[in-house]
C-alpha cells in the first residue's frame, strides 16, 4: 500500500474486514491476504482518475466488490486445490461457451478452453514460488464469469489473428478478395457501369473521397460515448438493446441517442463539405443522396450482381447473345 495514502489505510482495513464477513465462503483467507488485491483495484479504478477521492467513494467501491469471487481467485492463486476445483467446476462452461464463438468445431473449442485454463493458472513462478497467471488481473469489481469471458475473448482474438489465414476457408478468402477488388475498382460505384466516361469516374471517386473524409472528421468530433455507440452499432453489429444495457439506460433511450448522433453527423458532414471542400448546398444534397444510393449495395447484392455479370460474359463468349 505504498501508493495509497495513509488516510485511506484505515478505510481499506475496515472495508476488507467487512468484505470477508460478507463472503459466504472466505476459504480460510484473512484480511492481509485480500488487502493487496483490494488496494490495487482502488488505485486502478478510483485513485487513477481521481487522486482526491474521499473515504465514501473508496469504501463504496470496496463494498461493491464481489466477495466470494475474489476469495475464490485469491485462494486459487495461493495454490488451494479445492478452490481450483471449484473454479473449474463452476466456470468451465463460461470459458467453453466463449471458446465456441471462435472455434469451428467442438474439438477446437475444447482445445482453446484448455489453453485458456493454462493461461489462467500460469506456468511461470514468481519470486515466492507461486504460479503467476492471469488470475492476478481480476479485481473483483465485475463478475468472475464475465471476466473469464473477456479473458477468453482476448486470448482467442490474439490466437485468431495468428491463425487467421488457417481458420479462413478458400471460399471466404475469394469472396473477401472479390469484395475488396470490386470496392477498389468501383469504390463507391455500382458494379454494372461498363460504359462510363473516365472523367466521370474520376469525378465520382473524388466526390466519394470527400464524403468519406467528411464522415471520418465528423465522427472523430463526436463525444466519446456517441462515437462508441455509433461504432458498436455500425462496426460491431451490436443490438441497441445490448448497447443500452452496457451504458445503463433503456433501449428507447439508445435509439434516440443514435438518431441524434446521426443528425449530428449529417450536420457535420454537410458543414465539412461546404467549408473544407467548397461544395454548395445543391451539390451537397445531390451527392449525398447519390452516394447513399450507391453505397447502399451490400455484399450480398454485390455477389448477386457479380453472378449476373459472369453469366452475361459467358453468354457473350458462347455467342448466345
Amino acid at each position, binding site marked *: 500500500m505504498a501508493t495509497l495514502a495513509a488516510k485511506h489505510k484505515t478505510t481499506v482495513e475496515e472495508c476488507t474486514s467487512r468484505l470477508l464477513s460478507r463472503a459466504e465462503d472466505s476459504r480460510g483467507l484473512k484480511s492481509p491476504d485480500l488487502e493487496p488485491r483490494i488496494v490495487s483495484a482502488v488505485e486502478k479504478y478510483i485513485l487513477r482518475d481521481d487522486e482526491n477521492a474521499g473515504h465514501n467513494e473508496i469504501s463504496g467501491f470496496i463494498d461493491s466488490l464481489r466477495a466470494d469471487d475474489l476469495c475464490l481467485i485469491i485462494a486459487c492463486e495461493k495454490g488451494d486445490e479445492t478452490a481450483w476445483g471449484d473454479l473449474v467446476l463452476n466456470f468451465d462452461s463460461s470459458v467453453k461457451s466463449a471458446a465456441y464463438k471462435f472455434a469451428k468445431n467442438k474439438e477446437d473449442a475444447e482445445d482453446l478452453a484448455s489453453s485458456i485454463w493454462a493461461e489462467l493458472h500460469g506456468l511461470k513462478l514468481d519470486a515466492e514460488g507461486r504460479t503467476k497467471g492471469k488470475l492476478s488481473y481480476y479485481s473483483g469489481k465485475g463478475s468472475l464469469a*464475465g471476466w473469464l469471458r473477456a479473458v477468453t475473448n482476448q486470448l482467442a482474438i490474439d490466437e485468431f489473428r495468428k491463425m487467421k489465414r488457417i481458420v479462413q476457408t478458400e471460399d471466404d478468402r475469394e469472396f473477401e478478395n472479390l469484395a475488396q477488388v470490386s470496392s477498389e475498382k468501383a469504390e463507391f460505384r455500382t458494379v454494372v457501369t461498363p460504359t462510363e466516361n473516365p472523367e466521370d469516374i474520376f469525378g465520382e471517386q473524388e466526390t466519394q473521397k470527400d464524403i468519406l473524409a467528411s464522415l471520418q472528421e465528423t465522427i472523430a468530433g463526436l463525444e466519446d460515448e456517441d462515437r462508441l455507440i455509433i461504432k458498436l452499432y455500425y462496426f*460491431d453489429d451490436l443490438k441497441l438493446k445490448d448497447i443500452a444495457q452496457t451504458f445503463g439506460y433503456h433501449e428507447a433511450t439508445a435509439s434516440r441517442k443514435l438518431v441524434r448522433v446521426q443528425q449530428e453527423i449529417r450536420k457535420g458532414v454537410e458543414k465539412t463539405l461546404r467549408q473544407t471542400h467548397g461544395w454548395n448546398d445543391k451539390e451537397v444534397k445531390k451527392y449525398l443522396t447519390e452516394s447513399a444510393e450507391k453505397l447502399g449495395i451490400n455484399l450480398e447484392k454485390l455477389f448477386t450482381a457479380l453472378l449476373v455479370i459472369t453469366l452475361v460474359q459467358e453468354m457473350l463468349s458462347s455467342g448466345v447473345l
Partner: protein
Amino acid sequence: MEIEFDKEIDALLRRARTSGESQIVTGSGSHLDADEIAIFAENALPDKAKQRVTKHLADCGRCRTILSNTIILNAEAVEKTALPEIVADEKGVLAAASVPWYRRFFATQNLAYGLGALAIVFVGMLGFLVVQNSLNTGNSEMAKVSESETVASANTSTSLEESQRLGDQSLNSNLNTEATENLNRSEPRVAQNQMDANNIPPNGPQSTDNTAGSLDDRKADDDLRRNRQPQESNEYRDLQKDKLSPRRDQPAGQLMEGKRKGYERAEASDKSASPESRIAKPAPPPAPNATPANTGSGATTYGGTKNKSSAPVEAEKKERESDSIAAADSDENAATERSLGGKTFTRNGRVWYDSQYRGQQTTNIRRGTSSYKRLDSGLRSITDKLPGAVVLVWKTKAYRID
C-alpha cells in the same frame, strides 16, 4: 422498435465500416485489460474510470471487439438462465426485458399442450350441449304426449262425470215421473208406507199383497235404484275423491279394494239373495189414471185428485230423503267407527262391520224389500242410520244389509 434513421447517413456509416475506419488504434498501443472490459460491459465502472475506458474503446477497434464479444456472451448467458433483463431508462423508471409480449407467449414450451387441452375441453363442452339438447327435446316430446294423455283422461273423466250427472238427471227425471205416477196411486200406498213405518204387516189379500208386493217390489226397485244411484254416485265420487286425496286412516289401495269388494258383494248379493229379497223384474208402471182392481188397506190407487195433490209432496219428500241420504253418506264418509243401539260398527270401505261379527255366514237382505221389512225394527233402525252396506249380528244371526 422503429427508428426513423437518416437513411443517407446510415448508408454512409455502413460503407465506412469497410474502409478501415474501425481499425484505428490509439497511439500508445496500450490496450484495456480483460478486467476493465468486463467491468465496462457490466456497467460497473466508477464514473471517471468509465469515461476513460469509453474514450479508449471509441478509438480502439481491438478492445471494442473484445467488448462487443463479451457483451454478446453475457447476453446469451443471461438468456440461458432466463433472467429478465432489467434496465433503467434516463428517468430512472425500471422496465422489463425488451422481449415483446407476443414473443413471450409463443415462447411457452407447453403452449401446444395447453392448446390441445383447450381444444379437448371445447369439444367436450360442445358434445355435452348437444346431448343435453337432444334429451330436452325428447323430454319435451314426452311431456307433450303425457299432457295429451292427461287431457284425454281428464276429458274422459269429465265426460264420465257429465254422463253420470246426465244419467242422474235423467234418472231423477224418470224417478220424478214414476214418483208422480206412484203418487197418483193415492193414499193406500201412503198408508202402506205408514204401516210399514209402524211395522204393521200389510193386511189385505194376497192379491193385494201380491199387487202390493209387486208394487212394493217396484217401489223397492225404484228406491234401490234411487238409493243405489246416489250411493253409486257417492261411491264414485268418493272413489274419485280417494283418488285425489287418499284418507289418512286407510291406505288408498285398501280403500279402492274395499270399494271394489263392495261392488262385488253388491252384485253377488243380488245373485245369492233369497227370493224374497231378490229384486223381481219390475212390472211396467201402470197408467197414470188407472184404478187397481182390488182396493184394500194395502192397495194403492192411481190417479185421483187427492193423489195428485200429494204427489209433488211425496216426490219432494223422496228427493229430500235421497238428498239426506247423500248428505248422510258424505257425512258418514268421514267417520270410520260408530256406535248404534249398543253396537259398535267399524267401516271398511263402504261396509260397516259389527264388532260382534266374526266372519260367519250372513243373510243378505236388501233395504226396501219385503224381507227387509220383516226384520226387526231395531235392526232396521240401525241399518237405516248407516249408509251403504252393513254387516251386523242380530240375535245370534249375521245379516248383511245392502
